[in-house]
């Protein structure tokens, strides 16, 4: 009997624990980000606004390169190596965590070689077409942008990002909404995981939720979420809440952050202009 059950469970895991596995993976992902972002290292301690703006300008400059400007773009990758190396982040881990998004970003230009046959170079009978080059630049752009986003999110917690948004004069009420989404996302993900597990245990072999249960399964979760929102509101009211959360930053290292932010942004922009006029 036990043996049977065990076999049955093995079989089931292969077949159906798709949703549950996905949710668990998402939760682990968040754990990892949180852990890395809360470490006491120079990169993590920088002012979030400096990191956010640097990331933004970096991606901006990366995508602004011409689709055939492969050498110019390749140099931009140095920045990522520098940060991964000195920030002590694992490139391997980044690739593993971002594998799906990286694959999607890399696949965008896959059609280019078939559509753009303009000849760029001939080396020993092998023809390099414009389409090939534009495909590679597009892939690089995608990979750079994803890796830079990864660097930003593993070095900066959501609270810090919200602090940066507050510095950018984004309305506080909206920032409060973001913080609450982040806080309850994990709670509800776990709840969804439990619901899905309970469902899958009683519906072996099904890959997802049967259409007859579409409304009630997600609807129950929704009703519970709304009830929870009511309690959260009451709890906030009892502690003097007036519509916003007060975000306070404990770390103080303005000079270092200024050097970091302004330094990188200047380097990117100067390099971009330099590239432009060299040709």
């Amino acid at each position, binding site marked *: 009997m036990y043996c049977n059950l065990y076999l049955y469970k093995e079989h089931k895991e292969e077949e159906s624990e798709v*949703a549950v596995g*996905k949710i668990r993976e998402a939760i682990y992902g*968040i754990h990892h*980000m949180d852990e890395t972002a809360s470490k006491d290292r120079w990169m993590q301690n920088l002012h979030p606004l400096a990191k956010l703006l640097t990331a*933004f300008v970096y*991606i*901006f400059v*990366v*995508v602004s390169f*011409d*689709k*055939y400007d492969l050498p110019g773009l390749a140099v931009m990758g140095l920045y990522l190596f520098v940060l991964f190396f000195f920030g002590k982040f694992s490139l391997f881990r980044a690739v593993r965590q971002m594998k799906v998004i990286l694959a999607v*970003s890399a696949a*965008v230009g896959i059609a*280019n070689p078939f*559509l*753009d046959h*303009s000849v760029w170079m001939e080396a020993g009978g092998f023809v390099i077409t414009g389409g090939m080059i*534009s495909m590679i630049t*597009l*892939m690089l*752009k995608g990979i750079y*942008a*994803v890796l*830079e*986003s990864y660097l*930003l*999110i593993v070095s900066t917690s*959501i609270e810090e*990002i919200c602090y940066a948004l507050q510095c950018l004069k984004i*309305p506080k*009420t*909206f920032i409060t*909404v*973001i913080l*609450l*989404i982040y806080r*309850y*996302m994990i709670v*509800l993900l776990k709840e*969804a995981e439990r619901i*899905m597990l309970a469902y899958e245990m009683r519906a072996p072999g099904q*890959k997802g*939720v049967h*259409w007859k249960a*579409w*409304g009630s*399964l*997600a*609807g129950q*979760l*929704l*009703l519970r*979420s*709304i009830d929870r929102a*009511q309690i*959260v509101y009451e709890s*906030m009211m009892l502690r003097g809440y007036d*519509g916003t959360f007060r975000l306070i930053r404990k770390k103080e290292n303005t000079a270092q952050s200024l050097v970091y932010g302004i330094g990188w942004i200047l380097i990117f922009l100067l390099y971009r202009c330099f590239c432009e006029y060299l*040709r």
Partner: protein
Amino acid sequence: MHMADALVAPAVAGTMYVCSAAAMTYSIKKVHLEVDTKKIPVMGVMGAFVFAAQMINFTIPGTGSSGHLCGGMMLSAILGPFAGFLTMIGVLLVQCLLFADGGLLALGANIWNMAFYGCFIGGMVIWRMIMKNGMSKKKIMAASVLGCILTLQLGAFSVTLETLASGITELPFAVFAGTMQPIHLAIGLVEGLITSAVLCFIYDARPELLWMYQKKERGKLSYKGTVGALACAALAVGGLLSLAASSNPDGLEWSMEKVSGTTELSASGTIHQAAQKIQELTAFLPDYSFKGSEGAVGTSVSGIVGAVIVAALCIVICICIRNIRKKKVK
């Protein structure tokens, strides 16, 4: 449908940021969160719900695949379009900054493609129009399915336009649109059905939670509604045109031939191009993105893009004028 950073050119990303920011500022003004503080935790928890719900796989009968819930439509059916839009922005922001899902630079475009259409077209126009004279299960079904299909079509079409306008892919417009639109038609249908199932459940259990349930606002379509409906109609026509274009094999072959035979690249690597690029940064549509721009397809693309820009500008200007007027009244 999250766009990655590599898909958008700076100019396009910037334009979409401006559009989304305008819609966001307007929504923040409309919800009055400073007064209605109770809405904030509901928005936060509902945003979290959308996350969790998107992780649940709903099996599509008769196929092996599964669908997901449509966040924008769902949120506006419960919170109303403005609060729904803000919540959706929050969701997209967290997705971007926690999972790197959708790029930082493309965030403006993603907000527009997913949140704006879902909440304003799906919620404010369709849901509101259908629910104007009372609510019923059939109406919820109709509104969800129609809303999801339309918002996804618009979203997919915008993705196509934004990618092409960014000059990213060598794919001709007709091919790109021809693949994007039908795929998203199917996705929209499924998402609409799932969303309607959930909303019908809520309607049975606690109907007072649904937006527009008690408030039966009768009378003429409001000013905002009219602007929205017009924009919606313009875009729908654009979408239909694109479908028609994609189903025309001659057009397709023609554009393929045109693309493969292109010689436009000969001018690259010169100072001329550098100057051109500066121009591109300021112009919305870089020249090289539409290889067949002198042909029929290219013209219609430009036409539709133009219509979208004009419509968007109209909305933004209308909103500005309205706000200025309001301030004067105050």
